[in-house]
């Protein structure tokens, strides 16, 4: 069994203890999406606002969950804020590729992912992968709903 320290990296615990971009945004103009992790009851609510230029001008995270789901959401919020939609999608793709356990595609270099790379260790604890990807799925839902 891999060491717990692989899962709970310092930077992850920091995001958990001091979540960034916590809160709500008025909808509209923002959009709101809610994601469930049926495995453990985690709920992530993502508020996302896209400006006229197609950039994510603001993002806020609400909901409750375990350290991994909370930290992942916090880290995501930092990483996508100010990005264009296609850049955000690229990040999502890269992040999920990092999370995929078996084969398929060349894993993106963690360097591209910045702080998000600290979640790499989650992969060694497969049940927790959903905790780390939940916020991304929710963001993606928020960006596509009308």
């Amino acid at each position, binding site marked *: 069994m891999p060491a717990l320290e692989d899962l709970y990296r310092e930077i992850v615990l920091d995001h958990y203890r001091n979540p960034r971009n916590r809160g709500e945004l008025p909808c509209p103009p923002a959009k709101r999406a809610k994601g469930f992790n049926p495995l453990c009851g985690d709920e992530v609510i993502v508020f996302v606002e896209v400006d006229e230029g197609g950039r994510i001008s603001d993002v806020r995270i609400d909901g409750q969950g375990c350290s*991994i789901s909370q930290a992942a959401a916090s880290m995501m919020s930092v990483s996508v804020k100010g990005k264009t939609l296609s850049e955000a999608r690229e990040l999502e793709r890269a992040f999920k590729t990092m999370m995929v356990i078996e084969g398929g595609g060349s894993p993106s270099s963690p360097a591209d992912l910045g702080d998000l790379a600290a979640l790499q260790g989650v992969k060694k604890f497969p049940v927790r992968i959903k905790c780390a990807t939940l916020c991304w799925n929710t963001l993606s839902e928020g960006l596509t709903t009308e």
Partner: protein
Amino acid sequence: MELNLKLNLDASTLKADFPLLGREVNGKPIVYLDSAATSQKPQSVLDAMDDYYRSINANVHRGAYYIADLATTAMEETRSKVQRFIGAASPREIILTKNATEAINLVAHSWGREYLSEGDVIVTTIMEHHANIVPWHILCADRGTRLRWLNLNVNGNLKLDDLDETLDGARLVVLSAMSNVLGAIPPIRQIADAAHEKGAVVVLDGAQFVPHLPTDVAELGADFLAFSGHKMCGPTGIGVLWGREDLLEAMPPFLGGGEMILDVTTEGFLPNDLPWKFEAGTPPIAEAIGLGAAVDYLADIGMPAIREHDRKLTAYALRTLPGRFGDKLNIHGPADTSERGGVLSFTFGDIHAHDISQVLDGEAVCVRAGHHCAKPLMDTLGVTATARASVYLYNDESDIDALADALERVGDFFG
């Protein structure tokens, strides 16, 4: 003498009957505290199924040859064993399903759609498992019936002050005989009697109760009782619906197929007699035989002894854990072990249940984390998740101590 003996069991000896409990995780002996999710299985249950497959595997009921007959007899014996185990009047009242969930759905689909209509009230409780909520939500959406909820009192059991008003006009009362989150055992007989006075039918979810307490359906006063094999030392893939014969007799069939008919033509069909009327298709044969062996195993130890063991171990946990962790540890449910079973849901500081169980897992301590399929209860408790440790006949004080030691480590890690 005999009676006294029967009120004691030696968990450390029994442990040896369960192959899985001999394994290690992470180099440490496993500490299994998740029996409320599913129990471990004794060797005798595994042997019964293996023997079936190796020596008499054949489809039941329709075969005239030797091994088919043995298979049929073995399967039907389980029905009688279960009948005796829960004090049912006849094996005709024992319907084999795939799990407790299907058993409850059977009542909702067959009895519910036959007897309930627009506006009829179903009373349930806020501490139910989703298995005893969602089938009724589906029925409500389909038939326009309505749900009314019994709430919790401050002790973590059902609040019955307003029982009479709540039951007013109810046609059906559905409740868990033991909560899988709180461990709470409500005063079932009192509720059943009150429900019957109002002319309501009572469905008990016995998924947690039947494996842990002596069960006598007549004493409980219920009309239906659902439970699962896998939580009572039996295999997965098998559950039981007990129902009063007159009610079952009058109900329309639910699933259609082989075994559940007497005659089929291009125009229609004639349902079979009880219990087969409700058992469509090839039944879970090996699983039924495994359940029979599980019932033998439990009956042999004695349910009163199992209950007493659970109770003592729960008392030990309720005494020692707060002793070590103080206010940081919040255990839900009744404090009085006479009204609760050995299911201990807790929060620990503000550490999320999922993180708690992760660290415990590193110590080979298996507990569950999450909403335990009881989201309305979680909302009521004001939490999204709890960690849950649950005990059974093979656990002893050393398991509780191991849990406590592992919790120390959680505190260190997230402290």
